C-alpha cells in the first residue's frame, strides 16, 4: 500500500471512529468537532508524508499523477474523470446546502459562563458552613432545585427532559467546581432572565429565585450543592 493510500485509509478510519464509533459508547460528536479532528489528521498525514523527498513523492506523486492523467487508461481514466467532475459538484452541493434557507436554527457558540455583574463579584458566603446549615440547604435543594438538577446533583431530575439546554450537572468538574460561590448566588438569585447582555442568547429556564427565597436560603442551597456533588467552590486563597 502506498503512503497516499495509507493516508486516505487513516483519514477514513478517523472519520468512521469519531462519527460512528464513539456514538456507540457516548453521545454523538457535533460536526464542528469532527471537522477539527479530521483537519488535525490531515495535517499529520501531510507533515509525516513530506518529511523527505522520497516520502513526499510517495504521498503526493500518485495524487499529482492521477489528477494530471499521466499514464492513465481504461477504468483509471474514467475514475479521474469522475473525480474531476464529482469534487466540484460536491463543493457546489456543500455550498448550496450551507446557504439554502433552512428551518434549522444556526449553530451557536453560547457563552455558558458570562461574567457576573460587579455587585455579585467576590461575595463571601455569610452563612457558616456547619452540618446543620448544609443539611438545611439540602432540604431546600430537594424542595426547590432537585426536580430539575436531580436528587443526586447530576442534572438528571424528573423535569430535566423538558429543558434544552438541560439543567447543569454539578457533579461534572467543569461546572460549579470552576465557579465561586458568589457566581452561583448571582445565577440562583437572578435566574435566566437576569443574565446580562454578554450571556446572549438567553437560553436558561432557571427561575428568578429572589422573588421566592430569602438570600440566606440561597446561600445554604449553594453549600448543599457543593457538599452533595462532592465539589469545592473556587477560591483564590
Amino acid at each position, binding site marked *: 500500500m502506498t503512503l497516499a493510500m495509507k493516508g486516505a485509509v487513516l483519514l477514513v478510519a478517523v472519520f468512521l471512529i469519531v462519527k460512528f464509533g464513539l456514538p456507540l459508547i457516548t453521545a454523538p460528536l457535533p460536526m464542528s468537532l469532527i471537522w477539527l479532528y479530521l483537519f488535525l489528521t490531515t495535517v499529520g498525514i501531510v507533515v509525516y508524508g513530506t518529511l523527505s*523527498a522520497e516520502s513526499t513523492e510517495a504521498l503526493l506523486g500518485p495524487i499529482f499523477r492521477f489528477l494530471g492523467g499521466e499514464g492513465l487508461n481504461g477504468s483509471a481514466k474514467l475514475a479521474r474523470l469522475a473525480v474531476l467532475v464529482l469534487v466540484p459538484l460536491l463543493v457546489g452541493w456543500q455550498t448550496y446546502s450551507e446557504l439554502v434557507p433552512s428551518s434549522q436554527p444556526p449553530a451557536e457558540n453560547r457563552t455558558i459562563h458570562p461574567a457576573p455583574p460587579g455587585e455579585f463579584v467576590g461575595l463571601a458566603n455569610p452563612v457558616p458552613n456547619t452540618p446543620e446549615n448544609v443539611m438545611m440547604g439540602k432540604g431546600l435543594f430537594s424542595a426547590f432545585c432537585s426536580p430539575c438538577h436531580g436528587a443526586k446533583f447530576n442534572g438528571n431530575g424528573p423535569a430535566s427532559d423538558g429543558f434544552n439546554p438541560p439543567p447543569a450537572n454539578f457533579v461534572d468538574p467543569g461546572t460549579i467546581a470552576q465557579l465561586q460561590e458568589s457566581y452561583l448566588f448571582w445565577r440562583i438569585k437572578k435566574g435566566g432572565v437576569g443574565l446580562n447582555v454578554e450571556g446572549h442568547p438567553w437560553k436558561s429556564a432557571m427561575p428568578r429565585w429572589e422573588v421566592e427565597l430569602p438570600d440566606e436560603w440561597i446561600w445554604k442551597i449553594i453549600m448543599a450543592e457543593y457538599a452533595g456533588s462532592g465539589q469545592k467552590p*473556587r*477560591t483564590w486563597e
Partner: protein
Amino acid sequence: MGPHTSHRRSDNRQARQAGAVVPATRVWAYAALVFMLFTVAAPLGLAWGQEAPAGPATEYRDILPGVVGSRNLIWIIAQQHLLLAGFVLGVPIFAWVCEIVGVRTGDPRYDTLAKEFTKLLTSAYATTALFGGILLFLLIGLYPKLMSYLTDVFFPSFLVYCVLFLLETVTLYLYWYGWDSMQGATKGFHLFLGFLLNVFAFFIMIVPNSWATFQASPVVITEGSMWARAWAATWNPTWWPVNVHRLIANVVLGGFICGAYAGLKYLMAQSKEERVHYDWMGYVGNFIGVFGMLPLPFAGYWLMREVYQYNQQMGITLMGGFLSWLFILQAMLIGILFLGANYYFWLGIMYRIPGSEAKYRKPILAMLVILLICLGVWMTPHSLVASLEEARKMGGTHHPMLGVLGVMSAKMTVVNVMILVTFMSFVMYWRAGKQETATWAKAAKVGQGLILGIATVVILVLGVWGYFVPAITRINYFSTTQVLVMLFVLLTITPLTALVLKSAKTTTEMVWGIMPPRAAYALVLNAVMVILLMTLMGYARSSSRVHWHVYGVMQDTSPYAYSPALGYAAAFMSLNTFLFCLMVAFIFWVASLGGEKKGGAPGKARVKEAVRPAVAGAR
C-alpha cells in the same frame, strides 16, 4: 473649514516643491502627493464632519464614522505600533545574543548575522517611532478626555520615556555605526553597548506597558506627589506579568521573523553560498523562536491568574465569557506554531544529515502523534459549537465524554507535554549525526530517558488528579508543579546532552543549503502565526476592559462602547497581520538597497552563476 484649507494648500506647496527639485522622480512625487492627500488631507477635510460642540470640553472626535471610525483607526495604528515595537525590541536581543555566541565560539557567521539584523533596526526604529507619533496625535485628537486623564496620572513617566528614547537612540547609533570599528580589542565595549541597548529597550517597553495595564487594572491614589501617584499607577497588578509576557514574546517574534526573512531569502537565493547562509540563518531564527516559545505559555498563565485575582469579572469575561472563543483560536495558532517549529526541526534532520531517515522516522512519527493528540485536546472547547439537533443528542453543548477536555487541567497538561516534545525534537536534532564516545554516555542516555519518562508520567497524573481537587489546589500547586517538572527536564537534559556531545565524534557532517522549499515556507508560516497571535491576544487584553477606558474608573461613553462581533474582530486581526507583514517586507527591502549599492550590484553577478533558486529545487 478655514484651517483645513490652509493645510491642503501647504501640502500642495510642499508637493510642488518636491517635484521641482527632483524632476526625475516626478512619478514618485505624484504618488507621494496622492498618498499624503489620502492619509492626511482626506481625513482632515472629510471627516471633521463633527464640529466640536461649544461649551464643555470635547470628550471624543470621530474619523469617517461608518466607514473607518475612530476606534478602528486607533486599533490599526496601535497594533502596528505594538508589532513594530515588538520587532525593534526583540531584534536587539536576538542580535546581541548572536554577537555573544559569535565571540564565544569564534564563528564569524554569528557576527555577520547579528550585524545583518542590526542594520534593519535603524529603519525599523524610525518606522516604530513614526507610528508611535501617529498614535499619540490620533489619541490626543480622538480621545481627549482619556488622554487628559492619563496625562494627569502619568506625566512623570512621559518624561522618563522621553529620556529613555534619547538614550536608546544614541546607543543604537553607536552600536550600529560602530560595528566595524569596534572589532578586536574594543569588541567588549561593543558588546556592552548591545547590553545597554537592550536595557534601555526593556525600559522603553515597560513604561508604556504601565499605561496600558493601568487601563485594565488601575491603581488610583488621590494623595501624594505627582511622582507618587504615577508610581502607584505604574506598579499595578498586571504590569509585571505583561512585561514578562511581552519580553518573551518579543524574543519569539524576533526569532521567527528572522527565520521568515531567511526563508524568503533562501527561496530567492541564486548561489550556493547564499543558500548555505540563509539555510543556517533560518535554523538560528527558528531555534531562538522555539527557545522563547517554551516559557511563553506560563508567562501567559501568570498574566491570566493576576487578571483573575485583580478582578474576577474581567477574568471570567476573558476565559469563560464571550472572549473565551479567542482562546480556542489561540490554541489553534499556537498548535500550528508548535507543528511548524517541529516540522522544521524534522526536515533539518532528514535533509541536512544524509542517511538519517531510517533512524529517525519512527521517533518523529511518535512525536507527531503525541503533538496532534495534545493539539486535539487543547483545541476541544468546553462548550461546543453545535446545531440544535446535535446539542439535543449531546444533552447540551457540553459533550458528556469530551467535555472534560475543555477545562484548564487538560489544557495545562497537554501544553506541558507539547513543550517536552518540542524540546526533544531539538535534542534529537542536536544529537543527530554524532556518536557518543564517553564511557558513561549510555548511562547518561538511560538517565535522560528516565527523567523524561518520569516527568511525563508526573505531568499526566497531576493533570488527571486536577479534576478531583479544588480549583485553588490545582492552580497553586498542581499547575505550578507541572511547569517545574517540565523546566527540570529542560535544565537537566540540556547540560547532560551538552556534556555527552562534548566528546562525541561526528559520523555524518551536516550539509547546509539543501533544504526543500517547504522548509522555508514553514519558517514564513511560523512568523505569520506569531504575528496573528499577537494581534489576537492584544485584542483579548484590550477588549477585556469592555465598556471602560480605565476599568471601573473611566467609562467609555463614545458611540463605540461595545465589543465587536468575533468575526469582525478576526477580520481586523488579519488586516493588521497583513499590514505588518507588508511593512516588515518594506523594511527588509529598504535595508537590502544599501547593501546592493555598496557591493556593486552583486545580484547581477550572482545570476550569472546560473545556480537555480531553491524554489526550483527538489522535493
